């Protein structure tokens, strides 16, 4: 009994210290992002662009596939329901709104957490276990400025961009299904999409993706920088990082959707 209680206690304590560590890392990242440039220590532009290419441009293909097929599936599933009411043409609005508000941001975040978040943890983790992080510190190069800020900025900017792309590709999938299979008139499909989709559908989705980007970057970097235990440790940190990011993205989605829902946004 006592063993169980102390076991739970130690899990709670280590979780709390990790949460604390992530917030400290967040604070340091903000410091180097906003104060750093004014004391002549901005993050290198070359690194930021390299990370943006890796995070954004190189994720386009996988985001395209996931979103396009999700759009097709959404169209089929909703057509099956709406056919009973004789309202198949509203497939268009259903696909558009659910992509923009929910599926675009969340699916993109999950794909990017699996692809980019894992890569960040694996890279920083192996730098940690081979003493490269210590080497940076010894050379008076702050690891947060040099490694975390470029990755954080890249995710902060590129995840909303990828989300917009994902929204569009999902709608394209719905369009292909709706027009060529369900038989909705092409012009009408586009009209209904535009009529029903409001600006707030899009920006609530984008606000979500900004938060998701920060979550993925911070968890990925924190897990990487705190890796210990050689090659096995890098593997473990990467798994923990991806799983934690997934859970936190869904949790944040739930909270943010709640806020938008109850504040009538």
């Amino acid at each position: 009994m006592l063993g169980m209680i102390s076991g739970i206690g130690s899990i709670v304590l280590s979780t709390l210290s990790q949460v604390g560590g992530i917030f400290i890392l967040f604070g340091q990242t903000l410091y180097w992002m906003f104060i750093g440039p004014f004391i002549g220590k901005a993050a290198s532009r070359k690194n930021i662009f390299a990370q943006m290419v890796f995070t954004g441009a190189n994720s386009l293909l996988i985001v395209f596939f996931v979103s396009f097929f999700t759009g097709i599936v959404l169209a089929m599933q909703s057509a099956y329901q709406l056919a009973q009411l004789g309202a198949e043409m509203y497939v268009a609005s259903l696909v558009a709104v659910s992509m923009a508000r929910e599926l675009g941001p969340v699916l993109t975040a999950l794909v990017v957490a699996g692809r980019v978040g894992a890569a960040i943890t694996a890279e920083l983790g192996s730098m940690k276990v081979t003493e490269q992080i210590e080497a940076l510190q010894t050379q008076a190069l702050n690891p947060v400025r040099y490694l975390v800020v470029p990755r954080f900025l890249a995710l902060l900017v590129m995840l909303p961009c990828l989300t917009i792309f994902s929204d569009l590709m999902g709608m394209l999938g719905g369009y292909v299904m709706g027009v060529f299979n369900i038989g909705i008139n092409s012009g009408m499909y586009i009209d209904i999409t535009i009529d029903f989709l409001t600006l707030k559908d899009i920006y609530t989705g984008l606000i979500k993706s900004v938060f998701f980007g920060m979550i993925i970057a911070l968890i990925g970097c924190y897990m990487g920088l705190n890796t210990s235990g050689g090659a096995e440790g890098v593997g473990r940190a990467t798994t923990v990082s991806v799983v934690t990011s997934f859970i936190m993205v869904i949790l944040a989605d739930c909270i943010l959707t709640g806020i938008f829902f109850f504040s009538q946004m």
Partner: protein
Amino acid sequence: MENKEVIIEVKDLVKSFDDRKVLDGVNLKVHKGETLVIMGGSGCGKSTLLRHMTGAYKPDSGSTFIKGKDITKMKESEFDNIRKIFGMVFQYSALYDSMDVEENISLVLKEHTKLAKDIISIMVKMKLELVGLRGFEKFLPSQISGGMRRRVGLARAIAMDPEIVFYDEPTAGLDPIVAGVIDRLILDLSKKLHITSIVVTHDMRSAFTIADRIIMLYEGKIIAEGTPDEIKSGKDPRLVQFVEGNPDGPIQFFQNSGEYLEELTK
């Protein structure tokens, strides 16, 4: 040696990891321009001592002074200025994997100086010439051998023309010839550039070649100190055992605790 300027001073340093006391009241002075070798068996705390001098670890009590300033009580931004006067060579080189040899060496110059690109490129060539690797600028760390990586690590450590260079087991895992090359490089650097060197090693041959002064660490304490000749003729049985590499002696290889028979029949 007595009237020489003290560049690093360690005072009553104590450090524990969990419940194990790794450093137990270490006092140490390093004079400007000398090569000090810290030797001792694995786990005796020599790497930990080195990391207290580079500021990577904070002590439980005691302090480290570099050029008269207490680095344990310093703010990070202040300490960064001290970091610029020293370089460090890591046990497994710790070169940045994603950068080629030239970028590895030039990174610190680009970040901390306002030198023009072509000047930095000339400086990189000079550092590589010193370690005998000119022409390898565009190779990635994964494309060169372990001994070459160690030499690039050395070139990186001296990129900013430091006053102090720390070496963490610079010859570990290298064949005797390459180890000899590294030894000669360390000697050359301290003689030609008047760099103060602090070398952690358990390679006796290397220690006797390069050292001006040797200290031996055992269970977190300094048990012997002197010139290589004094160490060779030292009478402390623990020192004699270590220098001769004798498996039997006062330093026990087996670190079991508890009664063997008791544990077997439990």
